[in-house]
């Protein structure tokens, strides 16, 4: 279970982060949510491997408990 690469892999992390935040500039919450969803779907398709995707989903959810 180490198919998901969580080691540094971005050539220019600060540039990426700036682009990511910039992507949402001047958007409403709903528009931002839609953009994020589209981004996830595009990247998921690029990754393809279901094990990597499941691992990424688990890592994203880690430490977040259901709100009851």
């Amino acid at each position, binding site marked *: 279970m180490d198919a998901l690469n969580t080691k540094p892999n971005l050539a220019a992390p600060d540039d990426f982060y700036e682009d990511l935040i910039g992507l949402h500039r001047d958007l409403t919450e*709903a528009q931002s*949510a*839609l953009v994020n*969803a*589209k981004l*996830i*779907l*595009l990247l998921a*398709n690029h990754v393809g491997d279901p094990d990597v995707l499941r691992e990424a989903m688990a890592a994203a959810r880690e430490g977040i408990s259901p709100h009851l």
Partner: protein
Amino acid sequence: MTYTNPVFAYRRPPELDGSTRHCGVVIVGAGPVGLAAAIDLAQREIPVLVLDDDDTVSVGSRAICYAKRTLEILDRLGCGEPVVQKGVGWNVGKVFHGDQLTYQFDLLPEPGHHRPAFVNLQQYHFEEYLVRRADALAAAEVRWKHRVVDVAPAEAQVRLRVATHDGEYALTCDWLIVCDGARSPVRHMLGLDTEGQVFRDRFLIADIHMATDFPTERWFWFDPPFHPNQSVLLHRQADNVWRVDFQLGWDADPEEEKKPENILPRLRAMLGADADFEIEWASVYTFQCRRMQRFRHGRVLFAGDAAHLVSPFGARGANSGVQDTDNLVWKLAMVLRGQAPDSLLDSYDAERVAAADENILNSTRATDFITPKSVVSRTFRDAVLALAHRHTFARKLVNSGRLSVPKVLADSCLNTPDSHAFSGMMVPGAPAADAPVSGPRGEWLLPYLGGGFALLVFGDGISPESARELAQDTIPCGIVQVGGTLREDRVVIQDKDGLVAARYDASGQTCYLIRPDQHVCARWRAFDPAAVRRAIARATCNHERDVQWTR
């Protein structure tokens, strides 16, 4: 109106005048599922009595999409042809989001199959053809306006009380097949329940008669301008009748929505102010994805909507019900003839519960896409639709119903696991694939298989002695030989386009054992009569008891 419901005659039963009757099989419900079961039994010359509380076929179009596998079963039951002739074939589906065409798909059938992926036909036509077929079979008796009011299953038989307008009478039977629909009165009488999900949404379906040049395609809209925030489906049926399906949301009032004065504005908004149409039938429904825990309760067997319910997206209701009977009837026939122990009927439960779960899974996923349950689910749904216009990957995620395909019974205990290497789709448990052939019984492979056990064998490696022994066994097995020398003791067909060999990954002396319901249950690279017998014994639950094979 394009259709007038027939009225089938009620006949006063002799049991009201003192005679008593014990039946091998009684079926409750003369809908598509009950009738398919009755025809299958009667074709095997097993007397069957069907009881129905009504005296006509379905009111309104209801189930309209009949899948390839169902058509193949109907061919075996002698009513495939009228359904295909009357039905409307279609291949193209279009998906719209807002006012844009997002993408279109083509079911583009693989060539070399007799039956198309789907035909659309109103349920009343479908039922009428089945009623006619049942009436033509001496072993089937359908009693209209006979309502079962009490069921008492016991160890040795099932007792029924039946009400007519002339009074009540009693019947007994060895086996009861319950096909009385989603609300299943018999299931309630027995105190049995279904488990699963009810979806908090309502849909309006309307049949409209409309002469139009719209293409024969399935059109599905998400959030169209004429019906914002909801989905709409338009699908063609026979006789220029069109099915329109409007998602309404949970808060809609079903009684109000059903009124023509409320339906008309919705249709006008969709079809244009000048469209010339007439409403034939309308209904508001909610849907559920549920099933009974078990489909067999001793001598009582449940099939169709009485046993399992799915949402309509994907056409898995009537199709899976007919497939239930295809699985059940040959097993019941063998039990009735003493050819198999009644534990064979437990495999009906196992195989069709697995099929129901697959249908429920597909249907639930489609419903979650069409009716998102949360804000984030809706966001992802809209993201998929927004991407699908430009990016082909996202089209695979759009789910307006995954259309019905038969269950591959890969985990069935009736299968003999492979001992040789094979590739392709025809794994043990798979429904046998069709292919063009030439031979004494026509131009397609499937009609040569089914009814009883068949050994599909490539080449003429089976000796006359072996052929005779297999044909004369306690459970006979016919030989269907592909290519090679013509012989009296077997059916020989020619693989005219090479598609039988290709679809069955044939080489050398490849043999496939095909069940009476046309599912593969074993296969080998070489013919071994002892292995064939063991596989037949396994497929009939006879491997646990000592079978005296005639030799």
